[in-house]
């Protein structure tokens, strides 16, 4: 009997370890919102998703992949580009967001137009200024490629690509983008300590920023108007485009601040290149409109030294292990 129990326990342990290598909930995180029961991670599916993430066939002209605008080295965003680029050198209307900890994200896109990670890839695939294709065309191309027939067979036991399988595989790879090994995380786990300046910055951050940029994800996942003046050329009303409700005018998803050092420029339209510009916006650049987040009614009051302290704290959110992890890089 005892032997049987031991065998059984080691089986469970093995199963657990096996699963852990693909997706582990970090100790300081809550349970994810993504429903893994509908799309359990496997090595072959994650690999297929990774290959698809780097696949330019996802675009009409076979030139743009997901990675074109979401490079692992910048926490999966497009650094130095204010607005995203697409096929035929077209330029989009929004700044490609950084991708990480997506299993905890309730909605996707700056305006929350996408309700499930699985469906996210449909938007850039179909956007005429991004990939300019359709999922129908993409699946047809994959089915016509011997390499993908093998990969789909390995992943799903059936060599035929479908929209469902293609999207679920891309989700699987993106679900592995877990960033939870920054200095901040190590301090929270009591493995490291903040410098005096970082600690000061952390206190200021908690007092002034954390109602929206809530720990440990550094976003509350909600939509807020953070007082940016409206860009008359883009005329982007944000969340209102989705809900068609005036109370959502000029509201955009609160982005995570993790890896912010790597993911410049900032804001939905990439208008700020430096963190100091972002802080100056919150202290002296708030544009008053009806839907402004109430916390920002009078701006945030910070001395210039305090701004430097906050920036020092924000740099502790950089997760080098995440950004340079070879498991996210171009599949050989």
């Amino acid at each position, binding site marked *: 009997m005892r032997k049987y129990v031991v065998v059984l326990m080691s089986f469970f342990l093995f199963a657990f370890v096996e699963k852990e290598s693909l997706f582990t909930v970090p100790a300081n995180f809550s349970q994810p919102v993504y429903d893994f029961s509908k799309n359990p991670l496997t090595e072959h599916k994650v690999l297929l998703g990774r290959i698809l993430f780097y696949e330019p066939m996802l675009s009409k002209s076979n030139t743009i992949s997901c990675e074109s605008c979401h490079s692992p080295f910048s926490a999966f965003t497009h650094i130095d580009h204010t607005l995203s680029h697409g096929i035929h050198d077209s330029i989009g209307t929004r700044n490609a967001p950084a991708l990480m900890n997506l299993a905890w994200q309730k909605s996707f896109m700056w305006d929350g137009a996408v309700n499930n990670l699985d*469906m996210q890839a*449909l*938007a850039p695939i179909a956007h005429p200024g991004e990939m300019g294709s359709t999922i129908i065309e993409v699946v047809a191309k994959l089915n016509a490629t011997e390499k993908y027939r093998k990969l789909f067979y390995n992943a799903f036991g059936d060599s035929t690509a*479908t929209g469902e399988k293609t*999207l679920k595989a891309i989700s699987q790879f993106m679900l592995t983008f877990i960033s939870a090994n920054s200095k901040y995380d190590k301090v929270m786990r009591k493995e490291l300590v903040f410098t005096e300046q970082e600690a000061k910055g952390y206190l200021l951050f908690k007092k002034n920023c954390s109602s929206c940029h809530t720990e440990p994800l550094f976003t509350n996942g909600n939509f807020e108007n953070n007082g940016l003046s409206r860009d008359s050329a883009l005329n982007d009303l944000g969340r209102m485009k989705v809900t068609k409700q005036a109370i959502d005018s000029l509201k955009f998803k609160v982005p995570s601040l993790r890896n912010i050092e790597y993911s410049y420029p900032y804001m939905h339209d990439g208008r700020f290149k430096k963190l100091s510009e972002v802080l100056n916006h919150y202290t002296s650049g708030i544009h008053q409109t009806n839907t402004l987040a109430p916390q920002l009614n009078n701006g945030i009051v910070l001395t210039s030294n305090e701004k430097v302290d906050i920036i020092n704290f924000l740099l502790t959110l950089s997760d080098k292990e995440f950004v340079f992890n070879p498991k996210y890089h171009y599949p050989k």
Partner: protein
Amino acid sequence: MKISFVVAFKSIPIVLHDSTYLHEDGSGLKFETLKFYISNVQLLQNDVAVFIEQNSFHLIDISDASSQNIILKQNKQINFNKVRFKLGIDSITNVSGAMGGDLDPTKGMYWAWQSGYINFKMEGACSSCLLPKYDFEFHLGGYQYPFNALQQIELKTISKNNFNIVLDINQFFTAVGLSKQKQIMSPCDDAVKLSSQLANCFSVK
């Protein structure tokens, strides 16, 4: 047990692409795409459900004859005098991620730029739709308050055996008025209004 959907103009089954159908206001109509979701099919006897189809999602597409028949898997003879179904996809399914079969996004019934199924898609040309082209496009859907376009339909049945459900598009165009409205591409008030008008155009024959 089989339910067959017939998409008709007055009493004539619609054929895509070539045929022109004459509406009573004088417009000539041609159809390029006409497909819609039927879900949650139930049979009722005196308002009590006697058969509830499991995993009940059907894309009825008039370019594919086999899609127009719904085979209900039940063996014993049951008595029923009503059929109940939904026109469109419920909100839980709309937020549940990627799905296969008739719900696969390659069926062309899922919005790319904003999550959600298109419950009903009809595209074509109309001689009275002058600008910018002679086109009409109805992409009706939306699952979120206040633009939930899902419709529940109940129809009395006359036979215990196989029966037809007819969707009369002529009736829809009469209710809508083609000169006013011919492009709906996103969840909105009009999509909800048109969906409820469309729900009135089904009948058992």
